[in-house]
């Protein structure tokens, strides 16, 4: 894909103006218009972009930019800094309980990548000498349990299931008992995909939450998600108090603006990114790389 990078556009816009002498507020507006377009093209939420541009502008019309010899670079620097701050400043790790087992609840919209990511997390933890247990609480999707069983088998992690005739809340509770008895120090609960506006299923998730008191509630989000990411993240966070986000399918070419939208409405860290369908393709999240990716630089 040919992409005229934002930094180039800004350099051009501001570099030319530079020869006129001092930058004006209007010049900065012109440059920020490019930033706005880039963020919207990257699927950052409309409102989030609006606030962001306003914040950057406040800094950019400060004298150090207006009078600098390289205003383009200054503006880019500010944009990048602000984005990185918004993305979360450093890598954030999993919360491990001081008294095991650590309980992790996976949640999210349909098809986001919960089941696959549950398997990836288990794989990851297994390699750190933990003893994870996967729990099949999706009783709805055809062959969801089988899918988790296959995933568990591939990574060599046991899978707790009670078939699809039991309530997910009961399954989760029984799984914790089972895990404690079998010395599993990490319990990862896979749940069915659900819409944030599906009241019954959201209530079910709340009930699982109260029944098991998880240490981590991870919202799994597809990196290709558009403007709706804020509604989804906000609702899941309101109802469950999520502890973090996993962004999947970043091996694609989506710019991933959803990452920014979600961070900005939930203030919760992005803990991992999914980089492929294979079960070892889970990576820590790097805020600075994500910021550059969103800007197309």
């Amino acid at each position, binding site marked *: 894909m040919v992409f005229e990078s934002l930094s180039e556009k800004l350099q051009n816009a501001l570099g030319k103006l530079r020869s006129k002498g001092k930058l004006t507020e209007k010049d900065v507006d012109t440059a920020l218009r490019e930033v706005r377009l880039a963020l919207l093209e990257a*699927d950052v939420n409309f409102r989030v972009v609006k606030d962001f541009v306003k914040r950057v502008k406040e800094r950019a019309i400060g004298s150090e930019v207006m009078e600098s010899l390289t205003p383009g670079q200054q503006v880019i620097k500010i944009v990048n800094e602000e984005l990185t701050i918004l993305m979360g400043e450093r890598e954030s790790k999993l919360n491990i309980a001081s008294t095991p087992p650590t309980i992790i609840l996976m949640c999210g919209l349909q098809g986001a990548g919960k089941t696959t990511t549950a398997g990836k997390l288990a794989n990851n933890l297994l390699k750190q000498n933990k003893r994870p247990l996967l729990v099949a609480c999706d009783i709805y999707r055809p062959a969801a349990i089988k899918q988790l069983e296959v995933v568990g088998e591939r990574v060599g992690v046991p899978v707790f299931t009670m078939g699809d005739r039991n309530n997910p809340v009961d399954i989760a509770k029984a799984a914790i008992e089972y895990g404690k008895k079998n010395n599993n120090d990490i319990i990862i609960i896979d749940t069915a995909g659900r*819409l944030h506006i599906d009241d019954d299923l959201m209530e079910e998730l709340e009930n699982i939450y109260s029944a098991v008191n998880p240490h981590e509630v991870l919202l799994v989000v597809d990196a290709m998600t558009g403007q709706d990411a804020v509604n989804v993240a906000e609702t899941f966070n309101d109802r469950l108090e999520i502890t973090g986000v996993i962004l999947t399918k970043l091996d694609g070419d*989506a710019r991933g603006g959803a990452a920014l939208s979600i961070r900005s409405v939930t203030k919760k860290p992005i803990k991992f990114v999914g980089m492929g369908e294979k079960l070892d393709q889970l990576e820590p999240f790097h805020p600075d790389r994500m910021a550059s990716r969103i800007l197309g630089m």
Partner: protein
Amino acid sequence: RSYGKIDEELFDDLEEILVTADVGINTTMEIIDRLKNRVKEEKISEPDKVRELLKEEIKKIMEESEGDNKLKIGSSPTVILMVGVNGVGKTTTIGKLSYNFKKQGKKVIIAAGDTFRAAAIEQLEEWSNRSGADFVKHSEGADPAAVIFDGIQAAKARKADVLICDTAGRLHNKKNLMNELSKIFRVVNSEFPEAEKEVLLVLDATTGQNAISQAKVFKEVCDITGVVLTKLDGTAKGGVVIALQSELGLPVKLVGIGEKIDDLQEFNVEDFVEAIFD
């Protein structure tokens, strides 16, 4: 909210509505420009009228391919190839679609062309049980093109009306996976030349601007004939299909509105446009 007069604020708000519906800022700016021109030329003075004109503009785009919004089913046999990125709803849509065909008394065969994802075959098999369609499968890890080949032979031998082929989810920037799809597409064309063909790109309505990139690449590899827009039962509007229609000439044919077997509808322009402004 009502406006006293037609001003920039009104157009800004309309821009926000479109962008928030994932129409994309470029397409949005084009549409708003056209709208402004019309307002000027037609000397529109009532703000409420502007919104109606905007709806009309979008409808005009979506109706460009009038008649193409329907599946080319009729003369049998028909082959439907379901393609798209991961997790968008391909397999589920096949279940719903075959149920619809069965209800119309058609003989339907489903071929399990996703031999890669964990339990993909079992998932599709459950849908074939629910819909009462015949099922053709190989084991996990088998060559998907070989499964589709067998599906075609079965369709011929059993005189099926419709053969629906599932494929594994794949990101369009994965060269090897797109080559695999191209091979499947070639098998369909060479082994079943007499069949009517529909290649449906399944698109999750929550997807943003990346859908354009998806559609371009899939279209190049396997000649997409239409789009299925899934998960419209959520709060996402799927506005990016406006760009798919206007830039790539890809009509939406079906929409998914839930996880149940009868949650599939034909695309309706009116409903789609109204939903953007809800």
